Structures are given as structure tokens and as C-alpha cells.
């Protein structure tokens, strides 16, 4: 495969890798849904999201559904590229590719 491989320490932190993996499967995921799937607290998830946001990997949009304010998270194209590259590098390390 001609995919890029690149180890990314920012993504490698356990919770962040899982955040990216989850976000990669959908267009957008709500903050609370992501929190429940990862089984972490609000504050822990917020902290990681902030780091990923600052790196430009994750985009946060607030929208209202039926008067309820919700925070939606999605992977930016840069974030998706970095995540894919990181997973490919992990695969290379375990000798899979």
C-alpha cells in the first residue's frame, strides 16, 4: 500500500487514539455519546478534545436539536490523515504490512 505511515505522539495517548478511532467511523459524533462509548468523564474527554482541537485534528461544532444544545465532534481531514498514518505505522511496527 502506498499509504503514508507516520508515528504521531499526539494521537498515540490511549484515550486520544480511541477518540480518533471512534470519530473516524462517522461523520460527526456527539460529545456525550463519545464519552459514554469511551467510558471516561466529561472533564477527561474535554481535556483530550482540547489538545486534538489545538492540533487541528478535531473540529467541535455546537448545534441545537429540539432546544437542546449539543456539541458535535468530527475529525478534520488533517486529523483523519494523521490518524490513518499513525495506524499504518503501528501496523508496520507489528510487522503486518
Amino acid at each position, binding site marked *: 500500500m502506498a499509504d503514508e505511515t507516520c508515528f504521531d505522539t499526539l494521537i498515540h495517548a490511549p484515550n486520544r*487514539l*480511541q477518540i480518533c478511532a471512534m470519530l473516524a467511523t462517522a461523520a460527526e*459524533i456527539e460529545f456525550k455519546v463519545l464519552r459514554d462509548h469511551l467510558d471516561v468523564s466529561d472533564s477527561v474527554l474535554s481535556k483530550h478534545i482540547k489538545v486534538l482541537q489545538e492540533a487541528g485534528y478535531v473540529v467541535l461544532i455546537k448545534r441545537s436539536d429540539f432546544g437542546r444544545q449539543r456539541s458535535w465532534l468530527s475529525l478534520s481531514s488533517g486529523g483523519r490523515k494523521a490518524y490513518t498514518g499513525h495506524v499504518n505505522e503501528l501496523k508496520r511496527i507489528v510487522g503486518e504490512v
Partner: protein
Amino acid sequence: MKENEVNITAEQAQASLDAVRKINTDAVETQRPPWWFLILSSAAYGMMSFSYSSMKHENTWAVGLIISGAVFFLLFLFLYYSYRLMGIKLKMWPTSKSSTHIYAIYALLFGVVFAGARELTVVGFDWVAYAGGAICAIGFFTMTYLYPTGEPLNTPTSKQ
């Protein structure tokens, strides 16, 4: 931020990949539509192919195509809306190289079946309309069941 020199062991990398696989499995299970939806949408899809193949000037299968197309569209609208309220916006377009492959299979398989079944039916092989409809329904069911997120399970299985 990025380091090209590898500073983790194969075991650590494997553990990370396992975590990714776990999340992917979780996402697939969460985003897999319920059985009634899979059955109804596959049936509507098969019906679309059958109607399209059987469509002639002197019959009304064009109406069948329109109705099954509308049912198919409304079912997906309903699914999309339901998931959105539950906090997940489903992916509509391929976003990565690996998901492009999945969408290409859909396009190729169904494009070819749709067009081919119609050509052959028009030429006179009436049974091809039934076969095409069945292939579309079964193919759609299988693909949607296996890849609800539009992503292959791109995680290590060789070491399992």
C-alpha cells in the same frame, strides 16, 4: 508533534491496534441498522433493480421503480434522522482510502447488476430481472450488515 523514529515496542503497538479494533467493533455494532431495517431496505433495493429491468413501454413497472426508490430513500432518511438524534451523524461519503474501496464495491456491483439485468431482460431473458433483483437485495443486505460504517475493519486480525 510528529516523530518518524519509532519509540515503542511491537507489543505496545499491538496493544494500541487492539484498542483501535475494539473501538471499530463497537462502532460497527452501534451503527449497524436493526434487522427490520436491513430487510426492508434490501427488499426495496432488490425491487428497484427488478422494476428497472422489467420496465417497458406497455407496462407500469416504472411506477414500481418510483415507489421502491421512494421507500428506499425514505428508509435511509429515517435511519439518518434517528441516528442523528441519538448523537451519531452517519457518514454519507467515503472519507478515507479504505472506505473508498467499500463504496467502489457498491457502485461496481450494483451499477453492473442494474444495467446488465436490464439489458438482458429487454433482450428477452425474463428470469434475469428476478436474478438481478435477488443479487441486489442480498448484496445490499450483506454489505450493509458487514460495513455499516462504510469502513472495512482495518485493524490487525493476523495476530489474533
